[in-house]
């Protein structure tokens, strides 16, 4: 699968590791792939983001991801569902952080086992990688580019998709600006 990755897609995967390490995360998460995508310039994904008006929104996306961290990595929908049961997630996170330090609840349940010095890819990030292959197949593209990683992020339910949607980037809007390229057109 990786041999079909374009240079941009490879760079995103590599930079995601850098973002995870810089954040002190124990695994590379889907949000790190998103941060890496936002760093790209002159790639298909960056053109698509610009076309959707999300080009210069890196800071805003970063802030939204930060807020999600304070919700223990839960999406806003999940936090709302818990609020419906009278559970205040941000309150829980702030108490845990008081006792165990900032970023203690980073949405990384595998965290207990530090198996190696190098950060590995978390399940969510792996799902995005396999999702990018599916996205390429669906569009009948022979390569897997950073635009397919972005598409995969929008289709996988969770924080990155929610943040992207808040910035006008959904699977639908993305498919529109990415256009044809042998894409299976309905009707």
């Amino acid at each position: 699968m990786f041999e079909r990755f374009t240079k941009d897609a490879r760079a995103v995967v590599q930079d995601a590791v850098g973002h995870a390490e810089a954040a002190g995360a124990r695994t590379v998460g889907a949000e790190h792939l998103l941060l890496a995508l936002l760093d790209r310039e002159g790639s298909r994904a960056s053109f698509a983001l610009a076309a959707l008006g999300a080009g210069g929104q890196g800071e805003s996306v970063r802030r939204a991801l930060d807020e999600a961290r304070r919700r223990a990595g839960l999406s806003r929908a999940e936090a709302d569902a818990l609020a419906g049961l009278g559970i205040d997630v941000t309150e829980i996170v702030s108490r845990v952080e008081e006792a165990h330090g900032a970023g203690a609840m980073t949405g990384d349940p595998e965290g207990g086992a530090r198996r190696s010095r190098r950060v590995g890819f978390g399940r969510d990030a792996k799902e995005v990688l396999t999702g990018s292959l599916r996205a390429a197949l669906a569009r009948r593209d022979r390569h897997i580019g950073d635009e397919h990683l972005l598409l995969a992020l929008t289709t996988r339910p969770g924080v990155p998709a929610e943040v992207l949607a808040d910035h006008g980037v959904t699977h639908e809007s993305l498919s529109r600006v990415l256009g044809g390229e042998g894409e299976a057109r309905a009707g």
Partner: protein
Amino acid sequence: MSEATDLAARAGDRDPRVGLRAVAALRRLLEQLESVQVRSAREQGWSWQEIASELGVSRQAVHKKYGRR
């Protein structure tokens, strides 16, 4: 009825989607809390057996999930 109980009733009784989402979210939150507490206990020198008995699970279960430290 307060707003919270109202919402809770709604989550519990009517819309299964909201209720199920709350359960799934709670499970994720729980996993994270457990991970934080187990890590902290290990850092304070607790044995797997001690951690397991506080959690009410077998020593093997905890070790398998968080072990190799």
